[in-house]
Structure formats: structure tokens, C-alpha cells
């Protein structure tokens, strides 16, 4: 698993992908941060919500090649005939994408640090918001990895990932429009409702567990998809 993790991290940073994505993330989040500066607004949680929205666009591009490329180039054979377990391959690759995301998160600490320098306080909301943001990103990446496993075409993987994430993003809205039991179900499954809780500074263990199980389920489905394809390969 370590071998796969480091290989993927290297290939992110040896190619322009990581830099372009990190650059895009910084650019957009900086534009969003601009109003905070000019209006001396010390609250950062609104920015975190918007940054979550950037992830809907960035994560699919980050994860599109992660499994699809191996399938297309025939390097999947190497991985699957090596004495490494399939679960280790998928988790190793997932963690590599997560690593790139964490670099983005780390860089984005610049914004609250600037605010703190200018006198804003480190509030539970801020800490909670960040924990939520990281968990949300980690869940998005799991969805992206899954999308990359169902096709050998990277573009399709990216579009698929984007569609899934967009559905997740608007599920709450649809729920409140429809109302009734559908709304309750959507709300229960929602990644965002929990994220909003974090943003209010509410750190709930069951929400953390929900995110972690969400990731586990998507990685598990990914493994199943690859396993199923091995059995029916044509």
C-alpha cells in the first residue's frame, strides 16, 4: 500500500495536475477571501462553505485518472498480479488523492491566519468548520475514486464524478422542495447537513462516523466494481 501511495503522490506532483488544481483552488478561494479583507470581516465559515463548492469541481479532476488510467494503459495487470491486495491498491490510491487535498487545506490555513493576525479570534466554529471541510473533501474524493473505477475513460470518470457530487450538493435543496418522507431520507443521508453542523461549531461524533462510513462504503463499492470486472472480463 505504501508503494502505491507514494507512486501516486509522485505522479501527481511530477505532472502538472497537482499544481494546476492546487493553483485553481487557491485562486478561487482567494477571490472569495477578498471581501473579508476589504470589509474587515473576521468570520471565515462562509468562505469554508464556498470552498466546499469549489471541491465539487476540483475533486473529479483530481481523481479521474486514479483508476481509469491504469485500466487504459494496461498497468492494471501489473497491480493485480502483484502480491498486493486489491483493497490495498484502492486505499493507497485514495490516500494519495487525499494527500493532494490536504496540501490544499494546509495552504488555505493562510486565510484564517491572516484574519487572526488582524485580530479575529480562533473560534470553535472555525475549528469545527475546518474539520467538516476536511471530512467533506475526503468523502468527495471517495466518490471520485469510485467514478474512476467504472470507466477507462478519464473524461467520463471526471464527468461522472462531477454529476455525483453535484447531486450530493443539491440533494438537500431537492429534499426541502419535495418535502415529506423524501426530504427526511435525503436529509439523513446528506453530507451537507452534517457539514453545516460542523460549520456552526457543533462537533458531533456520529457525524464524524457518518463521514468515515461514507468513505468506507464508496471505497468498498469501488473494490467490488473492480472485482466484478475481473470475473466477467471480456
Amino acid at each position, binding site marked *: 500500500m505504501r508503494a502505491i501511495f507514494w507512486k501516486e503522490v509522485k505522479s501527481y506532483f511530477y505532472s502538472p495536475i497537482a499544481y494546476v488544481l492546487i493553483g485553481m483552488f487557491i485562486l478561487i478561494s482567494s477571490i472569495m477571501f477578498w471581501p473579508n479583507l476589504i470589509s474587515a470581516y473576521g468570520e471565515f465559515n462562509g468562505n469554508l462553505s464556498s470552498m466546499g463548492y469549489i471541491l465539487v469541481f476540483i475533486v473529479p479532476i483530481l481523481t479521474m485518472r486514479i483508476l481509469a488510467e491504469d485500466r487504459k494503459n494496461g498497468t492494471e*495487470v501489473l*497491480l493485480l498480479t*502483484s502480491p498486493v491486495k486489491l483493497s490495498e491498491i484502492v486505499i493507497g490510491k485514495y490516500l494519495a488523492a487525499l494527500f493532494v487535498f490536504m496540501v490544499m487545506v494546509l495552504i488555505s490555513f493562510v486565510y484564517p491566519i491572516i484574519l487572526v493576525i488582524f485580530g479575529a479570534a480562533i473560534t470553535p466554529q472555525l475549528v469545527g468548520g475546518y474539520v467538516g471541510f476536511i471530512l467533506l473533501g475526503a468523502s468527495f474524493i471517495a466518490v471520485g475514486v469510485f467514478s474512476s473505477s467504472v470507466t477507462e475513460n478519464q473524461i467520463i470518470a471526471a464527468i461522472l464524478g462531477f454529476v455525483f457530487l453535484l447531486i450530493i450538493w443539491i440533494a438537500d435543496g431537492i429534499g426541502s422542495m419535495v418535502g415529506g418522507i423524501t426530504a427526511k431520507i435525503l436529509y439523513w443521508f446528506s453530507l451537507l447537513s452534517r457539514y453545516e453542523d460542523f460549520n456552526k461549531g457543533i462537533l458531533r461524533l456520529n457525524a464524524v462516523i457518518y463521514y468515515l462510513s461514507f468513505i468506507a462504503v464508496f471505497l468498498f463499492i469501488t473494490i467490488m466494481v473492480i472485482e466484478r470486472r475481473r470475473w466477467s*472480463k*471480456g
Partner: protein
Amino acid sequence: MIEIQNLTKFYGQIVGVKNISFTVEKGEVLGFLGPNGSGKTTTMNIITGYMPSTEGTVKVCGYDIMEEPAEVKKRIGYLPEQPPLYMDMTVTDYLNFVAELKKVNKKVKKSQLDDIMELVKITHVRKRLIRNLSKGYKQRVGLAQALIGNPEVLVLDEPTVGLDPKQIIEIRNLIKALGKEHTIILSSHILTEVSAVCERVVIIHKGEIAAIDTPENLSKNFRNMSKMSITISGPKSSVINLIKQIYGIKYVEAQTEKEKDVVTYIVECDKDLDVRKPIFFAMAKAGYPILELKSVGMSLEDIFLQVVTEEKEVN
């Protein structure tokens, strides 16, 4: 070393391979011969654990591929038809990655990689990106990858396809050298290649085994006729007439006329008869000089066609 029993693979309704059974002894080099789409790659993919079989068992060094895949995979080095290379990595980075993937001990890793690179002669390109290497070098890097971890068994799927003649000879010699220490399964659709390096050949057709034997026996047994190519200077019709009169000749066919009255003929006769002398005397008597006479070997295609047609006759 490798035991394959009743191996069957269905792709939905389509048969990939059907009821394949054979064994490979330790230290043996086994050739796997068949036209495209006959099931060579399918069999190799199953042996190496890339895909599971529908039925049947594969045992490598006593371990079943379905029950203890990790143990089997540790003992096999696989070079698929398309070498599994990461184009954006340098040769050294790539081989290091494979070594880690195969859980090679850190202490021996460096010396092992150096040895392998020396063996397949890629030491001087080790810092280059794989993307920029020629096809022949990519193939060698693929072979190097299969050798990492010093596996007892090597499975090589068409290792010389797409190489130039010099590279083909080099790779063949390399495989021969490797055959001294490893058990090798090698697939090919070229008979000369198989007879050059393999001790035993499995011919596979439409997913089923058509024949298993040594290359010598195969060419011997399937050669009911001996075939010659003769170039004779003389009028075509009378030459053909003269040849046909000779005892034992089954078939004569005139090929291209190179110069005026210089024609190459393909002659077939019973395999136990030597018709070269009678032809010589007949031509000498008629005053038509023989310019060239050589026997034509059986190609895989010939043997193969024969294997397949014989089966039909039995049925």
C-alpha cells in the same frame, strides 16, 4: 511446478478456453502456440491471477491461485503482451516501484535491480523516461519488471512481438539463459521462435489444446509430405510433365517466372522418399539445368492447419 487442470473460461456465452490441462516441470521452458484469439492470453491471465477461471484449477508450486493468490503471485513474474509500464516514470523509478510492490527486501533491492538492469541491458537508459524509450527497450523494461523479486516462474506473453530481428535474437538468447534457472511459459505465434527456445510446445486452437509435444516431434509428426522448392531453367510445361512422371511426387506447382524459362516449382512428395536424385537425373537428361533446390520447412501455419484438419477428420 505448474499444474493446470480442466481450465475453462467463459466470457458470458463466449468460450475463452475450454478444458485445458497440462503441467510444466521445474526448469522447463514451455511454448504456447496458437493464432490470435486462440486463448493464449486468457490462459496466461488466469495462471498469473489477473482474472479468475470459470472452472478448473491452477496450481503453482503447490499453491492454488484461487485459494492462496498472494503466495502464487509472489512466485510468478508476468510480462503481458503490452508491457505494463508507467510512461511518465524513469526506468529506475518504475523498477523501484515494482520492487516495492513485490515486497522485495530493502537490503537486497538495489543490488537486485542493478543485476537485472545489467542482465537485460538497460543500465544506460535507467535515468530516461519510459515514454521516450524505443519499443525494444520498453519490452526489456517489461522483462526486467517480470524478473524483479526473483520469481521461480516466468510467464511471457509474446515477448518478441514488434521487435526488430536483432532485438528478437537478443531477447530469445536472454530467455534461453533465464530458462536455466526459471520455469518459463512463453506464448508465440511463430514456430521458429518456439523451436529456438522451448523444450515443449502446447498448440492451442479455439480455446482447446490441439497438441502437446516437443517442437521436433511436432514438425516430424505433422510432416507427412516433404516439400521442396526447385528452380529450373527450361520450358515450363515440359518441366512439369517430367517432374510428374517421377515416382513418389504428389504435387507440382509452378510459381513465378523470374527470367524467360527460369521458373521456381513447389514439389511435394511422400516424406520417406528422397526424390532429389531422380529429379536431378531427369532434368540432366532433358538438358534443363537445376539452378536451386532446397527443402521448405513446415511453418506453424502448415502444422497448425494440419492439426485442425486432422481433428475434423477424426470427428
